[in-house]
């Protein structure tokens, strides 16, 4: 089996040193978002990419983790950091009965069941006002003023997630997960308890996603049902992150997270303020109007990006890296 790539170690080292050089809050915020997406994307990938059980509802686990942290504060006034310990466990406890009921379903039917789970939880969190605060959501006071501690905590968790994913994939579990994805009946005939191992992959996936949710609550300080159980902001985004980076590759979701968070911010900020700058400098209305359009265009761009990736890099950027490298080298003019 391959060793951890040098690029990954270098990237982690660089990320660990970065705040010493660049303590800019804006960039740290973006990096924290990126790292949270590394966790969610990798978790989704374990279950969907490796085990082949595609989930359209990972926000269910994310939101459960976030609400676990929030409810610790709301009821009993504990610290929201308890959520970091129990958010993942709560998500796992949600996943187990869900898996027991829904894993007999295969393919698209399972995916639809996960979508339903997501929506059920979103509505439950909205309706159970006394318990969850309903649409008002939960607001907590952040523990740290600086973003640096959050950054290091998130970085630590993202690295831990990747290390766990990597060691799982390179063990018996990994072989079992991929066998189930490739052919469930064959896997069963080779002595693999497919039902059990699907649940194992779900439990791992739900645990890390839930922990990411708890982290989000601690960091952002505010959640409501439509934020953390959001279909398009979490459930769909988790799929995009993995597809763009490479489904069924260890580092794919990390690469995908970098690209997706970067793109989202690029558009949200109007090319990092370029339009605003040009508008101010020239005094022209056009740039201000263009900025309005661009700010709302990121969903469209995500759509186009996914189509392009599926057409040309069906295994994602990491999965098709060999292909990318080849075509880049070929397009270089002969010296």
């Amino acid at each position, binding site marked *: 089996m391959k060793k951890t790539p040098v690029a990954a170690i270098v990237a982690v080292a660089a990320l660990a040193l970065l705040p010493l050089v660049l303590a800019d809050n804006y960039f740290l915020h973006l990096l924290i978002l990126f790292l949270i997406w590394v966790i969610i994307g990798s978790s989704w990938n374990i279950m969907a990419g490796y085990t082949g059980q595609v989930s359209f509802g990972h926000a269910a686990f994310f939101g459960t983790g976030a609400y676990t942290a929030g409810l610790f504060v709301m009821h009993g006034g504990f610290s929201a950091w308890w959520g970091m310990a129990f958010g993942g466990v709560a998500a796992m406890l949600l996943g187990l009965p869900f898996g027991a009921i829904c894993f007999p379903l295969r393919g698209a039917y399972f995916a639809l069941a996960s979508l339903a789970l997501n929506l059920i939880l979103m509505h439950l969190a909205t309706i159970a006002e006394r318990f969850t605060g309903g649409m008002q959501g939960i607001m907590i006071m952040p523990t740290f003023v600086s973003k640096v501690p959050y950054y290091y905590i998130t970085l630590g968790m993202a690295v831990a997630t990747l290390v766990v994913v990597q060691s799982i994939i390179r063990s018996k579990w990994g072989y079992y997960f991929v066998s189930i994805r*490739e052919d469930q009946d*064959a896997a069963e005939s080779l*002595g693999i308890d497919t039902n059990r191992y699907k649940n194992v992959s779900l439990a791992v996936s739900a645990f890390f996603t839930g922990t990411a949710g708890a982290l989000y609550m601690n960091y952002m300080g505010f959640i409501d049902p439509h934020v953390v159980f959001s279909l398009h902001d979490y459930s769909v985004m988790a799929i995009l992150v993995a597809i763009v980076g490479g489904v069924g590759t260890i580092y794919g979701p990390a690469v995908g997270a970098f690209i997706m968070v970067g793109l989202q911010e690029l558009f949200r900020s109007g090319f990092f303020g370029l339009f605003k700058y040009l508008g101010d400098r020239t005094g022209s209305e056009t740039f201000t109007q263009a900025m309005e359009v661009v700010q709302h265009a990121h969903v469209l761009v995500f759509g186009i990006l996914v189509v392009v990736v599926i057409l040309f890099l069906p295994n994602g950027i990491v999965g098709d890296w060999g292909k990318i490298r080849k075509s880049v080298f070929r397009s270089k003019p002969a010296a």
Partner: protein
Amino acid sequence: MAYFKVEKLVKYFGGLAAVNGVSFEVQKGEIFGIIGPNGCGKTTTFNMISGVFPPTSGKVIYQGKEIQGMKSHKICHLGVGRTFQVVKPLGRMSVLDNVTAAAFSRVNTIREAREVAEKTIDFCGLAPVADVLAKALPIAGRKRLEITRAMATRPDLLLLDETAAGLNPTELLEAIELIRKIRGNGTTVIIIEHIMHLIMTLSDRIHAINFGQSVAEGTPKEVAANPQVIEAYLGKDYA
């Protein structure tokens, strides 16, 4: 006590009886052939033995233990391996990884599983293509991978479902050689096959099924001469 026995197996799909009373006994160390025209219920019988689905009624007794209705993976762990007629390679895994996944049914660490897998691949003659993706193999390779994978689960009883279908004459001889080697290894083998040359040369005894029912059993010669078998294959005029 028989080593392996099925008793009055019946399987209904809705109102259709796919298997309607199949009984046979297999001795330890035997190569036992099952023949019958298309759609007579051979593969359905295998599926009931290996736990793909439970029989409507009847018993499957392996080493004195009733195993009908158990899950496939449990039956595999008891020592009954199988191949699929419609091959099911784990496509985006290499041949070695396919067999390693199977080897994990007996060992727990990667190192041991690799070792078992490599030995099994050598034994079954797939070593030259060990690093090839399973989906890139031609049909003969895929059929052989089915056998190799099943062997890596270290079966005591191996069910081969038309592993020679679609092979050319050379490959067929190799397949016969391999099945002999597997039996020589102490594994009991039940084969379903349409290729008469293979089943007649290999089998110690043959069991014939027609319309879901057992119609004849005996040595290859006896079965080939049985009027009911001839009728099943060639029609009444020849019987």
